[in-house]
C-alpha cells in the first residue's frame, strides 16, 4: 500500500477542509418532470456543499435522480427550484467553473487525442504551440503520453474516458463533475482508473463531485459519500470516509473499507429494493395495459 498520512496530518487536512468556505453550494434543489402518468419529482429538496479540494460522491440506486442532479449542477437542465452556486456566484446555465465528464463516451472521433484535449484551449484562443504544450501536460497526467496522434477509434474504452478527463481538466475547472465515468468499463479497469483519478486529484487538489451507483468506487475515491433515496431523490445520509490518503486501489482489501461499503450498502439496499419493486409494478401495469 502507498504511504499513509499520519493521524496528525489527517487531522490538519480535515481541519483545513472544515474551515474552508464551500466552493460549491447546492441549495434546496427540486426538479419535476411532466410524464404521461403525471408529475414526477426526480429531485426533492436536495442541499449540500463541497469544500475546495474535497472529493464528494453522490450515490443512489437507479432512478434516484442522480443524473438529473448532474445536469442541474452542470447547467444543462433548467426549470428547477433552488440554486447552484460556485465560489459565491449563482449559476444560470453551463459555466466555465464546472468541468463535466459524462457517463457516455464523449471524445470527438474526428480529433486526435492531443486535439481532443486541446479543445477547450482552442476555444480560449491560445496559439497552437501553446495549447499543444498545455494539452501534452494533461495527456501525460492521465497517462496517455505516446498516444497523442491516435484517434479515439484506435483507443480502448478506458483510454477514451481518460481523454475526456484530460480534455475537461485542460479547461482548469474549479469543480470537476463526473457522472459515472467508468460505468461502461470492467471492474479491473475501473479500479485502476480510480487510482488514476486519486493521483490526479492529489496532484491538482481538484474539487470533485462524482455521481455514481458503485459503492466501491465511491468509498475508494471520496472524502464524503452522500447517499440518496429512491424516487423522489432526497439525501438520506452523509458518510465521511476517513480512510488515509494518499490512497490506491489496494485500499479495497482493508477492513475499514469493507465497513464503509457495508454501511453504505445498508442504506442503499432498502432504496434499491424499493426501486426494484417499483420497476416490477410498472412492468406489470404496462403488461396489463
Amino acid at each position, binding site marked *: 500500500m502507498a504511504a499513509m498520512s499520519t493521524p496528525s496530518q489527517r487531522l490538519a487536512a480535515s481541519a483545513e477542509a472544515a474551515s474552508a468556505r464551500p466552493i460549491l453550494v447546492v441549495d434546496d434543489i427540486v426538479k419535476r418532470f411532466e410524464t404521461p402518468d403525471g408529475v414526477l419529482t426526480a429531485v426533492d429538496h436536495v442541499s449540500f456543499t463541497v469544500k475546495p479540494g474535497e472529493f464528494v460522491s453522490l450515490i443512489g440506486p437507479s432512478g434516484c435522480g442522480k443524473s438529473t442532479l448532474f445536469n442541474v449542477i452542470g447547467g444543462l437542465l433548467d426549470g428547477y427550484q433552488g440554486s447552484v452556486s460556485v465560489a459565491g456566484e449563482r449559476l444560470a446555465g453551463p*459555466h466555465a467553473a464546472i468541468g463535466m465528464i*459524462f457517463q457516455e463516451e*464523449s471524445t470527438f472521433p*474526428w480529433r486526435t487525442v492531443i486535439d481532443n484535449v486541446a479543445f477547450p484551449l482552442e476555444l480560449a484562443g491560445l496559439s497552437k504551440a501553446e495549447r499543444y504544450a498545455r494539452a501534452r501536460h494533461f495527456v501525460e497526467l492521465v497517462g496517455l503520453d505516446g498516444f497523442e496522434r491516435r*484517434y479515439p*477509434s484506435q483507443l480502448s474504452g478506458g483510454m477514451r474516458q481518460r481523454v475526456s478527463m484530460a480534455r475537461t481538466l485542460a479547461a482548469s475547472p474549479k469543480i470537476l463533475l463526473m457522472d459515472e465515468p467508468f460505468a461502461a468499463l470492467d471492474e479491473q479497469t475501473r479500479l485502476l482508473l480510480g487510482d488514476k483519478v486519486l493521483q490526479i486529484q492529489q496532484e491538482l487538489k481538484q474539487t470533485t463531485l462524482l455521481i455514481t451507483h458503485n459503492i466501491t468506487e465511491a468509498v475508494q475515491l471520496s472524502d464524503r459519500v452522500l447517499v440518496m433515496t429512491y424516487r423522489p431523490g432526497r439525501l438520506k445520509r452523509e458518510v465521511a470516509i476517513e480512510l488515509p490518503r494518499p490512497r490506491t486501489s489496494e485500499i479495497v482489501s482493508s477492513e475499514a473499507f469493507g465497513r464503509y461499503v457495508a454501511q453504505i450498502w445498508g442504506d442503499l439496499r432498502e432504496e434499491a429494493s424499493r426501486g426494484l419493486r417499483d420497476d416490477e409494478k410498472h412492468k406489470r401495469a404496462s403488461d396489463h395495459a
Partner: protein
Amino acid sequence: MSAPSVARSRVLPAVLGWGTLAFSIVAIEGLIRAGLINRFIVPMPSEILLAFPRIVSEESVLSRFMLTIAEAFSASFLVAIFGIAGGVLLHRFNLLRQATETWVAALAAAPLVLIYPLYLVIFGRSATTIVMMGFTAGLAPTVLKTLEGLSATRRVLVDVGRSFNLTPAQQFWKILFPSALPTIFVGLRLGLIFALINIVGVEFLINFGGLGQLINELAERYDLAGTYAAICFVVLVSVCVFVLMERLERWLRPVD
C-alpha cells in the same frame, strides 16, 4: 502490423481490382469472338481500344471531356453549397423541416430529367441548362443526408459543447458539422451521381456540348466502338469527381 503486411494490405486490393477488370475485358473479348455475344450489340474491347485515338483526333473528345467535367464540377459546387445549406436550414428550423421534409424526399425520387424543357425555356440551349439540371437532380439527396447527419449527432457530444459554453456558431462548426460530415459526404456522393447522370443525359437529349452530345452523334452514326470509347470518358469524369470528393473528405475528416 509489420511493414510488408501493411504494403500487402495496400497492394492486394489494387491488384485484385485491376486484375478483375483485365479479366472481364479479356473474357468479353473471348465471348464476342466465340460468337456468344452479338458483336453488333457489344463491340469488342480491342475495337473500343482502337477507337480511342480516332475519337480523340476526329471528334475533339478532349475538349468535350473538359466541357462535361466543367459542368460536373459546377453542378457539384452548387449541390454542395445549396444542398448542405438546405439541410442545415431544415435542421435548424423544425417547423420548416416538418413542413418540407416529405416534399424533399419525394423530389429525390422524382424523374427530374423530365423538366429539361422548362429549363430550356428559362436558360436556353446552353451549358447553364445542363448545369442547372445536374444541380436540381443532386440537390434533394444532399439536403436529406445533411439533415440526417446533423440530426444523428450524438446527444452527449452536443452536451460536451454545451458544458464548454459554446456559442451556437461554435456548436455548429466544432461539433455538429464534423460529426455529420461522413453522412453529408454520402449525400454528396449520391447527389453527384444523380447530377452526372442528368448532365450527360441532358447533353444527349438536347444534343449540346460535351460527352453526351458526342455519344448521341456516334450512336446516330452507329459507331458502336466510338460510342463505348466516349462512354469510357464519361466514366473518367465520374472517377475525377469522386477522387476529388474522397480527397476532400479525408482532408476534412482524416479518420472515422
